[in-house]
Protein backbone atom coordinates (compact mmCIF):
# COMPACT_ATOMS: atom_id res chain seq x y z
CA UNK A 1 0.00 0.00 0.00
CA UNK A 2 2.79 2.41 0.87
CA UNK A 3 4.22 1.53 -2.51
CA UNK A 4 1.03 2.74 -4.18
CA UNK A 5 0.90 5.86 -2.01
CA UNK A 6 4.47 6.58 -2.93
CA UNK A 7 3.75 6.25 -6.61
CA UNK A 8 0.72 8.53 -6.27
CA UNK A 9 2.92 11.13 -4.59
CA UNK A 10 5.44 10.75 -7.40
CA UNK A 11 2.63 11.12 -9.93
CA UNK A 12 1.47 14.29 -8.19
CA UNK A 13 4.96 15.74 -8.42
CA UNK A 14 5.15 14.86 -12.10
CA UNK A 15 1.70 16.29 -12.68
CA UNK A 16 2.73 19.61 -11.12
CA UNK A 17 5.85 19.84 -13.30
CA UNK A 18 3.81 19.06 -16.42
CA UNK A 19 1.12 21.50 -15.25
CA UNK A 20 3.41 24.33 -16.35
CA UNK A 21 3.18 22.93 -19.89
CA UNK A 22 -0.61 22.50 -19.66
CA UNK A 23 -0.97 26.11 -18.45
CA UNK A 24 1.05 27.25 -21.46
CA UNK A 25 -1.19 25.23 -23.75
CA UNK A 26 -4.21 26.77 -22.02
CA UNK A 27 -3.08 30.19 -23.30
CA UNK A 28 -3.19 29.08 -26.93
CA UNK A 29 -5.95 26.48 -26.86
CA UNK A 30 -8.49 28.26 -24.67
CA UNK A 31 -7.56 31.94 -24.45
CA UNK A 32 -6.43 32.45 -28.06
CA UNK A 33 -8.45 29.62 -29.66
CA UNK A 34 -5.27 28.77 -31.59
CA UNK A 35 -4.53 25.07 -32.15
CA UNK A 36 -0.82 25.20 -31.43
CA UNK A 37 1.10 22.00 -32.10
CA UNK A 38 4.44 23.76 -31.60
CA UNK A 39 4.23 22.37 -28.06
CA UNK A 40 5.59 18.91 -28.93
CA UNK A 41 8.74 20.54 -30.27
CA UNK A 42 9.18 23.40 -27.80
CA UNK A 43 8.84 21.06 -24.82
CA UNK A 44 11.85 19.10 -26.07
CA UNK A 45 13.64 22.37 -26.86
CA UNK A 46 13.33 23.25 -23.18
CA UNK A 47 14.87 19.93 -22.22
CA UNK A 48 17.60 20.17 -24.87
CA UNK A 49 18.75 23.65 -23.86
CA UNK A 50 18.67 22.69 -20.19
CA UNK A 51 20.79 19.59 -20.74
CA UNK A 52 23.41 21.48 -22.74
CA UNK A 53 23.63 24.38 -20.28
CA UNK A 54 23.86 22.13 -17.23
CA UNK A 55 26.38 19.71 -18.69
CA UNK A 56 28.57 22.65 -19.67
CA UNK A 57 28.54 23.82 -16.05
CA UNK A 58 25.77 26.43 -16.14
CA UNK A 59 23.47 26.84 -13.16
CA UNK A 60 20.01 25.25 -13.21
CA UNK A 61 18.36 28.67 -13.05
CA UNK A 62 20.35 29.89 -16.05
CA UNK A 63 19.33 26.70 -17.86
CA UNK A 64 15.66 27.34 -17.09
CA UNK A 65 15.91 30.94 -18.20
CA UNK A 66 17.55 30.06 -21.51
CA UNK A 67 15.12 27.17 -22.03
CA UNK A 68 12.19 29.58 -21.65
CA UNK A 69 13.77 31.97 -24.13
CA UNK A 70 14.16 29.06 -26.57
CA UNK A 71 10.45 28.32 -26.19
CA UNK A 72 9.55 31.98 -26.63
CA UNK A 73 11.50 32.03 -29.92
CA UNK A 74 9.72 28.88 -31.08
CA UNK A 75 6.38 30.56 -30.32
CA UNK A 76 7.53 33.61 -32.24
CA UNK A 77 8.28 31.49 -35.32
CA UNK A 78 4.81 29.92 -35.27
CA UNK A 79 3.27 33.35 -34.74
CA UNK A 80 5.29 34.84 -37.57
CA UNK A 81 4.26 32.06 -39.97
CA UNK A 82 0.63 32.57 -39.01
CA UNK A 83 0.27 36.36 -38.70
CA UNK A 84 2.83 37.62 -41.23
CA UNK A 85 2.93 34.81 -43.78
CA UNK A 86 -0.76 34.04 -43.36
CA UNK A 87 -0.30 30.29 -43.00
CA UNK A 88 -3.22 28.69 -41.10
CA UNK A 89 -2.66 28.16 -37.36
CA UNK A 90 -2.48 24.37 -37.37
CA UNK A 91 -0.10 24.24 -40.32
CA UNK A 92 2.17 27.01 -38.97
CA UNK A 93 2.60 25.16 -35.72
CA UNK A 94 3.23 21.79 -37.41
CA UNK A 95 5.94 23.40 -39.54
CA UNK A 96 7.63 24.83 -36.45
CA UNK A 97 7.30 21.52 -34.65
CA UNK A 98 9.02 19.64 -37.50
CA UNK A 99 11.72 22.28 -37.76
CA UNK A 100 12.33 22.09 -34.02
CA UNK A 101 13.12 18.38 -34.27
CA UNK A 102 16.21 19.25 -36.28
CA UNK A 103 17.01 22.25 -34.13
CA UNK A 104 16.72 20.25 -30.91
CA UNK A 105 19.12 17.64 -32.29
CA UNK A 106 21.49 20.42 -33.35
CA UNK A 107 21.34 21.92 -29.86
CA UNK A 108 22.08 18.59 -28.17
CA UNK A 109 24.40 17.15 -30.82
CA UNK A 110 22.88 13.74 -30.09
CA UNK A 111 19.41 12.39 -29.38
CA UNK A 112 19.85 11.97 -25.65
CA UNK A 113 21.88 13.69 -22.91
CA UNK A 114 21.92 12.22 -19.40
CA UNK A 115 21.93 14.59 -16.43
CA UNK A 116 22.94 12.08 -13.79
CA UNK A 117 25.43 13.39 -11.25
CA UNK A 118 24.88 16.92 -12.53
CA UNK A 119 23.87 19.85 -10.40
CA UNK A 120 20.17 20.37 -11.13
CA UNK A 121 17.34 22.11 -9.32
CA UNK A 122 16.45 18.66 -8.04
CA UNK A 123 19.86 17.45 -6.94
CA UNK A 124 20.29 20.68 -4.95
CA UNK A 125 17.16 20.04 -2.88
CA UNK A 126 17.95 16.37 -2.58
CA UNK A 127 21.32 17.30 -1.12
CA UNK A 128 19.42 19.30 1.50
CA UNK A 129 17.87 16.01 2.62
CA UNK A 130 14.54 15.98 0.80
CA UNK A 131 13.76 12.65 -0.83
CA UNK A 132 13.36 12.23 -4.56
CA UNK A 133 9.57 12.46 -4.39
CA UNK A 134 9.64 15.31 -1.88
CA UNK A 135 11.95 17.28 -4.12
CA UNK A 136 9.61 16.78 -7.04
CA UNK A 137 6.63 17.89 -4.98
CA UNK A 138 8.34 21.03 -3.69
CA UNK A 139 9.67 22.05 -7.09
CA UNK A 140 6.43 21.23 -8.84
CA UNK A 141 4.30 23.08 -6.31
CA UNK A 142 6.50 26.17 -6.39
CA UNK A 143 6.68 26.22 -10.19
CA UNK A 144 2.96 25.63 -10.77
CA UNK A 145 1.97 28.19 -8.12
CA UNK A 146 4.30 30.86 -9.51
CA UNK A 147 3.01 30.28 -13.04
CA UNK A 148 -0.65 30.41 -11.98
CA UNK A 149 -0.09 33.66 -10.06
CA UNK A 150 1.91 35.22 -12.90
CA UNK A 151 -0.71 34.22 -15.46
CA UNK A 152 -3.53 35.56 -13.31
CA UNK A 153 -1.76 38.87 -13.01
CA UNK A 154 -0.73 39.11 -16.67
CA UNK A 155 -4.09 38.16 -18.17
CA UNK A 156 -5.74 40.74 -15.95
CA UNK A 157 -3.56 43.46 -17.45
CA UNK A 158 -4.53 45.66 -20.38
CA UNK A 159 -2.42 43.63 -22.83
CA UNK A 160 -3.52 40.35 -21.25
CA UNK A 161 -7.19 41.29 -21.53
CA UNK A 162 -6.67 42.11 -25.21
CA UNK A 163 -5.09 38.66 -25.72
CA UNK A 164 -8.03 36.92 -24.03
CA UNK A 165 -10.46 38.94 -26.10
CA UNK A 166 -8.57 38.00 -29.29
CA UNK A 167 -9.54 34.37 -28.78
CA UNK A 168 -13.10 35.42 -28.08
CA UNK A 169 -13.66 38.00 -30.76
CA UNK A 170 -10.77 39.28 -32.91
CA UNK A 171 -12.99 41.69 -34.85
CA UNK A 172 -13.89 43.45 -31.62
CA UNK A 173 -10.27 43.66 -30.52
CA UNK A 174 -9.30 45.36 -33.78
CA UNK A 175 -12.34 47.60 -33.46
CA UNK A 176 -11.02 48.71 -30.07
CA UNK A 177 -7.64 49.50 -31.57
CA UNK A 178 -5.44 46.59 -30.57
CA UNK A 179 -3.41 44.79 -33.21
CA UNK A 180 -4.60 41.18 -33.19
CA UNK A 181 -1.43 40.06 -34.97
CA UNK A 182 0.55 41.34 -32.02
CA UNK A 183 -1.75 39.85 -29.38
CA UNK A 184 -1.61 36.46 -31.14
CA UNK A 185 2.18 36.67 -31.33
CA UNK A 186 2.58 37.57 -27.65
CA UNK A 187 0.21 34.77 -26.61
CA UNK A 188 2.12 32.18 -28.64
CA UNK A 189 5.48 33.34 -27.28
CA UNK A 190 4.37 33.22 -23.66
CA UNK A 191 2.67 29.85 -24.14
CA UNK A 192 5.73 28.19 -25.63
CA UNK A 193 8.00 29.88 -23.10
CA UNK A 194 6.03 28.08 -20.39
CA UNK A 195 6.04 24.82 -22.34
CA UNK A 196 9.84 24.96 -22.65
CA UNK A 197 10.16 25.83 -18.96
CA UNK A 198 8.14 22.73 -18.18
CA UNK A 199 10.41 20.71 -20.49
CA UNK A 200 13.38 22.07 -18.56
CA UNK A 201 11.89 21.05 -15.20
CA UNK A 202 10.90 17.60 -16.44
CA UNK A 203 14.33 16.88 -17.95
CA UNK A 204 16.00 17.84 -14.67
CA UNK A 205 13.60 15.70 -12.68
CA UNK A 206 13.90 12.61 -14.89
CA UNK A 207 17.66 13.05 -15.20
CA UNK A 208 17.98 13.26 -18.97
CA UNK A 209 16.86 15.21 -22.03
CA UNK A 210 15.66 13.34 -25.07
CA UNK A 211 14.76 14.62 -28.52
CA UNK A 212 11.51 12.65 -28.36
CA UNK A 213 10.47 13.79 -24.89
CA UNK A 214 7.82 16.19 -26.21
CA UNK A 215 6.07 13.61 -28.36
CA UNK A 216 2.39 13.71 -27.47
CA UNK A 217 2.78 16.64 -25.08
CA UNK A 218 -0.08 18.42 -26.83
CA UNK A 219 -2.46 15.56 -26.13
CA UNK A 220 -1.35 15.32 -22.49
CA UNK A 221 -1.88 19.06 -22.15
CA UNK A 222 -5.34 18.84 -23.71
CA UNK A 223 -6.24 15.98 -21.39
CA UNK A 224 -5.17 18.09 -18.39
CA UNK A 225 -7.17 21.12 -19.53
CA UNK A 226 -10.30 19.08 -20.17
CA UNK A 227 -10.06 17.08 -16.95
CA UNK A 228 -9.68 20.37 -15.09
CA UNK A 229 -12.73 21.85 -16.79
CA UNK A 230 -14.88 18.82 -16.09
CA UNK A 231 -13.91 18.60 -12.41
CA UNK A 232 -13.79 22.33 -11.67
CA UNK A 233 -16.39 23.90 -13.96
CA UNK A 234 -15.70 27.25 -12.40
CA UNK A 235 -16.36 30.67 -13.81
CA UNK A 236 -13.56 32.66 -12.22
CA UNK A 237 -10.27 32.92 -14.04
CA UNK A 238 -8.38 31.94 -10.86
CA UNK A 239 -10.22 28.67 -10.56
CA UNK A 240 -9.86 27.90 -14.24
CA UNK A 241 -6.07 28.20 -13.96
CA UNK A 242 -6.03 26.11 -10.79
CA UNK A 243 -8.26 23.61 -12.62
CA UNK A 244 -5.69 23.16 -15.39
CA UNK A 245 -2.94 22.44 -12.85
CA UNK A 246 -5.23 20.07 -10.94
CA UNK A 247 -6.18 18.38 -14.23
CA UNK A 248 -2.52 17.72 -14.96
CA UNK A 249 -2.04 16.11 -11.53
CA UNK A 250 -5.17 13.99 -11.86
CA UNK A 251 -4.10 12.88 -15.32
CA UNK A 252 -0.79 11.59 -13.90
CA UNK A 253 -2.52 9.82 -11.02
CA UNK A 254 -4.97 8.12 -13.39
CA UNK A 255 -2.07 7.05 -15.59
CA UNK A 256 -0.27 5.64 -12.56
CA UNK A 257 -3.34 3.68 -11.52
CA UNK A 258 -3.90 2.39 -15.05
CA UNK A 259 -0.31 1.13 -15.12
CA UNK A 260 -1.13 -0.94 -12.02
CA UNK A 261 -3.53 -3.01 -14.12
CA UNK A 262 -1.78 -6.27 -15.05
CA UNK A 263 -0.93 -6.55 -18.72
CA UNK A 264 -0.88 -2.79 -19.38
CA UNK A 265 2.47 -1.68 -20.76
CA UNK A 266 3.78 1.87 -20.55
CA UNK A 267 3.65 2.14 -24.33
CA UNK A 268 -0.12 1.64 -24.17
CA UNK A 269 -0.47 5.02 -22.48
CA UNK A 270 -0.52 7.18 -25.60
CA UNK A 271 -3.43 5.22 -27.06
CA UNK A 272 -5.18 5.42 -23.71
CA UNK A 273 -4.63 9.21 -23.51
CA UNK A 274 -5.82 9.75 -27.08
CA UNK A 275 -9.03 7.83 -26.37
CA UNK A 276 -9.63 9.79 -23.14
CA UNK A 277 -9.14 13.11 -24.93
CA UNK A 278 -11.35 12.08 -27.86
CA UNK A 279 -14.13 11.08 -25.44
CA UNK A 280 -13.72 14.26 -23.41
CA UNK A 281 -13.92 16.44 -26.54
CA UNK A 282 -17.03 14.54 -27.57
CA UNK A 283 -18.70 14.98 -24.19
CA UNK A 284 -20.00 18.57 -24.66
CA UNK A 285 -21.68 17.57 -27.95
CA UNK A 286 -23.33 14.56 -26.37
CA UNK A 287 -24.66 16.52 -23.42
CA UNK A 288 -25.99 19.24 -25.75
CA UNK A 289 -27.87 16.67 -27.86
CA UNK A 290 -29.16 15.10 -24.67
CA UNK A 291 -30.44 18.38 -23.30
CA UNK A 292 -32.14 19.12 -26.61
CA UNK A 293 -33.81 15.73 -26.67
CA UNK A 294 -35.00 16.12 -23.13
CA UNK A 295 -36.34 19.59 -23.88
CA UNK A 296 -38.21 18.24 -26.92
CA UNK A 297 -39.68 15.41 -24.88
CA UNK A 298 -40.78 17.90 -22.24
CA UNK A 299 -42.59 19.89 -24.92
CA UNK A 300 -44.31 16.79 -26.31
CA UNK A 301 -45.59 15.87 -22.88
CA UNK A 302 -46.89 19.37 -22.20
Amino acid sequence: MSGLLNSIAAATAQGLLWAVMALGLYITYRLLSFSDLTVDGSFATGGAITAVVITSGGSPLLAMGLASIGGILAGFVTGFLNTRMRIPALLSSILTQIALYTINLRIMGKPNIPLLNQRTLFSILQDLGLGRVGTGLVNGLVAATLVVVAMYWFFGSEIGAAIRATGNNPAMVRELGANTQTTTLIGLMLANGLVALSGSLVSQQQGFADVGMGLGAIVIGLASIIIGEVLLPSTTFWMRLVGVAAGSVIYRIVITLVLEIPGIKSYDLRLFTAIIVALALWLPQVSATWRQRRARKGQDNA
Partner: protein
Amino acid sequence: MLKLIGVRKTFEIGTLDQTHVLCGIDLTIEAGDFVSVIGGNGAGKSTLLNVISGVFEPDAGQILLGDLDITRMPEYKRAAFFGRVFQDPAQGTAADMEISENLAMASMRGKRRGLRQNLKKSQYPMFRERLAMLDLGLEDRLHQRVRHLSGGQRQALTLLMATLVEPQVLLLDEHTAALDPKTAVKVMEVTERLVSTLKLTTLMITHNMQQAIRYGNRLVMLNAGEIILDVRDEEKASLTVEDLLRQFSRAAGDEGVSDRLVLG
Protein backbone atom coordinates in the same frame (compact mmCIF):
# COMPACT_ATOMS: atom_id res chain seq x y z
CA MET B 1 -14.84 66.49 -41.11
CA LEU B 2 -15.01 63.04 -42.74
CA LYS B 3 -14.50 63.31 -46.46
CA LEU B 4 -14.62 60.58 -49.09
CA ILE B 5 -13.31 61.56 -52.51
CA GLY B 6 -13.92 59.31 -55.52
CA VAL B 7 -13.78 56.12 -53.44
CA ARG B 8 -13.95 52.94 -55.50
CA LYS B 9 -13.93 49.32 -54.42
CA THR B 10 -14.14 46.26 -56.63
CA PHE B 11 -14.08 42.69 -55.35
CA GLU B 12 -12.42 39.77 -57.11
CA ILE B 13 -10.67 42.04 -59.60
CA GLY B 14 -9.68 40.23 -62.77
CA THR B 15 -11.90 37.21 -62.20
CA LEU B 16 -15.29 36.26 -63.57
CA ASP B 17 -16.83 37.18 -60.23
CA GLN B 18 -15.60 40.77 -60.46
CA THR B 19 -18.17 43.03 -58.82
CA HIS B 20 -18.06 46.80 -58.52
CA VAL B 21 -19.35 47.63 -55.08
CA LEU B 22 -18.43 51.27 -54.76
CA CYS B 23 -18.26 53.26 -57.98
CA GLY B 24 -16.76 56.61 -57.07
CA ILE B 25 -18.30 57.79 -53.82
CA ASP B 26 -17.98 61.48 -52.95
CA LEU B 27 -19.35 62.22 -49.50
CA THR B 28 -18.59 64.87 -46.91
CA ILE B 29 -19.90 64.47 -43.40
CA GLU B 30 -19.91 67.61 -41.26
CA ALA B 31 -19.26 67.57 -37.51
CA GLY B 32 -22.53 66.94 -35.71
CA ASP B 33 -24.23 65.30 -38.70
CA PHE B 34 -26.35 62.22 -38.09
CA VAL B 35 -26.43 60.59 -41.52
CA SER B 36 -28.69 57.66 -42.33
CA VAL B 37 -27.47 55.65 -45.28
CA ILE B 38 -30.11 53.57 -46.99
CA GLY B 39 -30.02 51.20 -49.93
CA GLY B 40 -31.07 47.75 -51.07
CA ASN B 41 -29.05 44.55 -50.83
CA GLY B 42 -25.76 44.90 -52.65
CA ALA B 43 -26.02 48.68 -52.87
CA GLY B 44 -22.62 48.92 -51.18
CA LYS B 45 -23.76 50.20 -47.77
CA SER B 46 -21.68 47.87 -45.65
CA THR B 47 -18.69 48.14 -47.96
CA LEU B 48 -18.86 51.91 -47.57
CA LEU B 49 -18.63 51.54 -43.81
CA ASN B 50 -15.89 48.93 -44.04
CA VAL B 51 -13.82 51.16 -46.29
CA ILE B 52 -14.20 54.05 -43.83
CA SER B 53 -13.26 51.90 -40.82
CA GLY B 54 -10.38 50.20 -42.62
CA VAL B 55 -11.60 46.62 -42.95
CA PHE B 56 -10.96 46.99 -46.71
CA GLU B 57 -8.67 49.39 -48.52
CA PRO B 58 -10.32 51.23 -51.41
CA ASP B 59 -8.94 50.58 -54.92
CA ALA B 60 -9.03 54.28 -55.70
CA GLY B 61 -9.95 57.52 -54.01
CA GLN B 62 -9.15 59.15 -50.73
CA ILE B 63 -10.56 59.18 -47.24
CA LEU B 64 -9.81 62.24 -45.14
CA LEU B 65 -10.60 62.75 -41.49
CA GLY B 66 -10.10 66.43 -40.86
CA ASP B 67 -6.69 67.03 -42.45
CA LEU B 68 -5.53 63.47 -41.92
CA ASP B 69 -5.41 61.08 -44.88
CA ILE B 70 -6.49 57.72 -43.46
CA THR B 71 -6.96 55.91 -46.78
CA ARG B 72 -4.20 53.36 -46.12
CA MET B 73 -4.19 53.38 -42.32
CA PRO B 74 -4.73 49.88 -40.82
CA GLU B 75 -8.04 49.16 -39.13
CA TYR B 76 -6.72 48.91 -35.58
CA LYS B 77 -5.10 52.34 -35.83
CA ARG B 78 -8.32 53.97 -37.01
CA ALA B 79 -10.06 52.66 -33.91
CA ALA B 80 -8.92 55.83 -32.16
CA PHE B 81 -11.27 57.85 -34.37
CA PHE B 82 -14.26 55.58 -34.90
CA GLY B 83 -16.64 53.69 -32.68
CA ARG B 84 -18.42 50.88 -34.46
CA VAL B 85 -21.48 48.76 -33.84
CA PHE B 86 -22.06 45.77 -36.09
CA GLN B 87 -25.24 44.00 -37.13
CA ASP B 88 -24.40 40.82 -35.22
CA PRO B 89 -24.77 41.46 -31.47
CA ALA B 90 -22.07 38.83 -30.85
CA GLN B 91 -19.50 40.80 -32.83
CA GLY B 92 -19.08 43.78 -30.57
CA THR B 93 -18.34 42.15 -27.23
CA ALA B 94 -16.14 39.39 -25.78
CA ALA B 95 -18.64 36.78 -24.59
CA ASP B 96 -16.43 35.04 -22.04
CA MET B 97 -15.45 38.24 -20.30
CA GLU B 98 -17.37 40.29 -17.77
CA ILE B 99 -19.34 43.44 -18.59
CA SER B 100 -16.78 45.38 -16.55
CA GLU B 101 -13.86 43.83 -18.45
CA ASN B 102 -15.46 44.67 -21.80
CA LEU B 103 -16.03 48.26 -20.74
CA ALA B 104 -12.50 48.53 -19.38
CA MET B 105 -11.11 47.39 -22.73
CA ALA B 106 -13.34 49.92 -24.48
CA SER B 107 -12.01 52.67 -22.23
CA MET B 108 -8.58 51.93 -23.75
CA ARG B 109 -9.82 52.49 -27.31
CA GLY B 110 -6.99 53.69 -29.49
CA LYS B 111 -4.60 54.02 -26.53
CA ARG B 112 -1.41 52.11 -25.87
CA ARG B 113 -2.11 49.04 -23.78
CA GLY B 114 0.37 48.24 -21.04
CA LEU B 115 0.81 46.03 -18.00
CA ARG B 116 -1.49 48.04 -15.73
CA GLN B 117 -4.47 46.02 -14.61
CA ASN B 118 -7.30 46.20 -17.13
CA LEU B 119 -9.97 46.51 -14.42
CA LYS B 120 -9.55 49.75 -12.52
CA LYS B 121 -11.88 50.15 -9.56
CA SER B 122 -11.77 53.91 -10.01
CA GLN B 123 -13.65 53.48 -13.30
CA TYR B 124 -16.57 51.56 -11.77
CA PRO B 125 -18.69 54.63 -10.89
CA MET B 126 -18.31 55.86 -14.49
CA PHE B 127 -19.23 52.39 -15.85
CA ARG B 128 -22.33 52.28 -13.64
CA GLU B 129 -23.36 55.77 -14.68
CA ARG B 130 -23.06 54.94 -18.38
CA LEU B 131 -24.80 51.59 -18.00
CA ALA B 132 -27.65 53.36 -16.20
CA MET B 133 -28.12 55.47 -19.37
CA LEU B 134 -29.19 52.28 -21.14
CA ASP B 135 -32.06 51.80 -18.71
CA LEU B 136 -31.64 48.01 -18.82
CA GLY B 137 -30.55 47.41 -15.23
CA LEU B 138 -27.05 46.41 -16.37
CA GLU B 139 -25.45 48.80 -13.85
CA ASP B 140 -26.07 46.17 -11.16
CA ARG B 141 -24.56 43.35 -13.20
CA LEU B 142 -21.03 44.66 -13.70
CA HIS B 143 -19.38 41.31 -13.06
CA GLN B 144 -21.67 39.17 -15.14
CA ARG B 145 -20.23 37.54 -18.22
CA VAL B 146 -21.53 39.02 -21.47
CA ARG B 147 -22.50 35.53 -22.65
CA HIS B 148 -25.52 35.71 -20.34
CA LEU B 149 -26.94 38.88 -21.90
CA SER B 150 -29.69 38.95 -24.53
CA GLY B 151 -28.99 40.17 -28.08
CA GLY B 152 -30.54 43.56 -27.36
CA GLN B 153 -28.57 43.97 -24.14
CA ARG B 154 -25.35 43.03 -25.90
CA GLN B 155 -26.06 45.52 -28.67
CA ALA B 156 -26.78 48.27 -26.14
CA LEU B 157 -23.54 47.40 -24.36
CA THR B 158 -21.67 47.55 -27.68
CA LEU B 159 -23.11 51.03 -28.26
CA LEU B 160 -21.80 52.07 -24.89
CA MET B 161 -18.39 50.58 -25.67
CA ALA B 162 -18.30 52.37 -29.03
CA THR B 163 -18.91 55.72 -27.34
CA LEU B 164 -17.08 55.31 -24.01
CA VAL B 165 -14.08 57.07 -25.49
CA GLU B 166 -15.83 59.71 -27.55
CA PRO B 167 -15.30 58.79 -31.20
CA GLN B 168 -14.95 61.41 -33.94
CA VAL B 169 -17.51 59.44 -35.91
CA LEU B 170 -19.86 56.74 -34.67
CA LEU B 171 -20.41 54.07 -37.34
CA LEU B 172 -23.55 51.95 -37.06
CA ASP B 173 -23.80 49.02 -39.47
CA GLU B 174 -27.47 47.94 -39.49
CA HIS B 175 -27.08 47.59 -35.76
CA THR B 176 -30.75 46.83 -35.11
CA ALA B 177 -31.37 44.55 -38.11
CA ALA B 178 -30.77 41.31 -36.21
CA LEU B 179 -33.03 42.24 -33.30
CA ASP B 180 -36.76 41.63 -32.85
CA PRO B 181 -38.86 44.76 -33.60
CA LYS B 182 -39.46 45.67 -29.96
CA THR B 183 -35.79 45.36 -29.01
CA ALA B 184 -34.79 47.21 -32.17
CA VAL B 185 -36.90 50.19 -31.10
CA LYS B 186 -35.36 50.10 -27.65
CA VAL B 187 -31.80 50.00 -29.05
CA MET B 188 -32.64 52.88 -31.42
CA GLU B 189 -33.90 54.91 -28.43
CA VAL B 190 -30.64 54.23 -26.63
CA THR B 191 -28.73 55.20 -29.79
CA GLU B 192 -30.52 58.51 -30.07
CA ARG B 193 -30.06 59.25 -26.38
CA LEU B 194 -26.30 58.60 -26.58
CA VAL B 195 -25.85 60.51 -29.84
CA SER B 196 -27.71 63.59 -28.61
CA THR B 197 -26.23 63.57 -25.09
CA LEU B 198 -22.67 63.19 -26.37
CA LYS B 199 -23.30 65.24 -29.54
CA LEU B 200 -21.75 62.56 -31.73
CA THR B 201 -21.21 62.70 -35.46
CA THR B 202 -22.93 59.54 -36.68
CA LEU B 203 -23.14 57.46 -39.83
CA MET B 204 -25.91 54.87 -39.63
CA ILE B 205 -26.49 52.22 -42.25
CA THR B 206 -29.95 50.76 -42.42
CA HIS B 207 -32.29 49.05 -44.83
CA ASN B 208 -35.28 50.20 -42.82
CA MET B 209 -36.75 53.27 -44.59
CA GLN B 210 -38.87 54.27 -41.62
CA GLN B 211 -35.76 54.27 -39.46
CA ALA B 212 -33.79 56.29 -42.00
CA ILE B 213 -36.54 58.90 -42.19
CA ARG B 214 -37.12 59.09 -38.47
CA TYR B 215 -33.54 59.39 -37.26
CA GLY B 216 -30.80 61.80 -38.21
CA ASN B 217 -30.61 65.14 -39.95
CA ARG B 218 -29.42 63.81 -43.27
CA LEU B 219 -30.30 60.90 -45.54
CA VAL B 220 -28.11 59.36 -48.22
CA MET B 221 -29.43 56.73 -50.60
CA LEU B 222 -27.05 54.28 -52.27
CA ASN B 223 -27.80 52.22 -55.32
CA ALA B 224 -25.34 49.99 -57.19
CA GLY B 225 -22.40 51.66 -55.52
CA GLU B 226 -23.44 55.24 -56.25
CA ILE B 227 -25.10 57.95 -54.21
CA ILE B 228 -28.46 58.66 -55.84
CA LEU B 229 -29.97 60.89 -53.15
CA ASP B 230 -28.50 63.16 -50.49
CA VAL B 231 -30.92 65.37 -48.58
CA ARG B 232 -30.64 67.16 -45.26
CA ASP B 233 -32.51 69.17 -42.64
CA GLU B 234 -35.96 70.50 -43.72
CA GLU B 235 -35.93 68.68 -47.00
CA LYS B 236 -35.06 65.46 -45.19
CA ALA B 237 -37.67 66.07 -42.52
CA SER B 238 -40.43 66.22 -45.13
CA LEU B 239 -39.45 62.92 -46.79
CA THR B 240 -41.97 60.08 -46.80
CA VAL B 241 -41.55 56.36 -47.40
CA GLU B 242 -43.38 56.86 -50.73
CA ASP B 243 -40.77 59.43 -51.80
CA LEU B 244 -38.01 56.98 -51.04
CA LEU B 245 -39.75 54.13 -52.85
CA ARG B 246 -40.17 56.35 -55.89
CA GLN B 247 -36.45 57.15 -55.82
CA PHE B 248 -35.66 53.47 -55.49
CA SER B 249 -37.81 52.38 -58.41
CA ARG B 250 -36.51 55.22 -60.55
CA ALA B 251 -32.96 54.04 -59.91
CA ALA B 252 -33.90 50.41 -60.47
CA GLY B 253 -35.90 51.43 -63.56
CA ASP B 254 -32.90 53.18 -65.07
CA GLU B 255 -30.94 50.03 -64.56
CA GLY B 256 -33.71 48.04 -66.21
CA VAL B 257 -33.52 50.34 -69.22
CA SER B 258 -29.78 50.09 -69.51
CA ASP B 259 -30.01 46.29 -69.19
CA ARG B 260 -32.48 46.20 -72.06
CA LEU B 261 -30.21 48.40 -74.10
CA VAL B 262 -27.29 46.12 -73.50
CA LEU B 263 -29.33 43.07 -74.43
CA GLY B 264 -30.32 44.91 -77.62
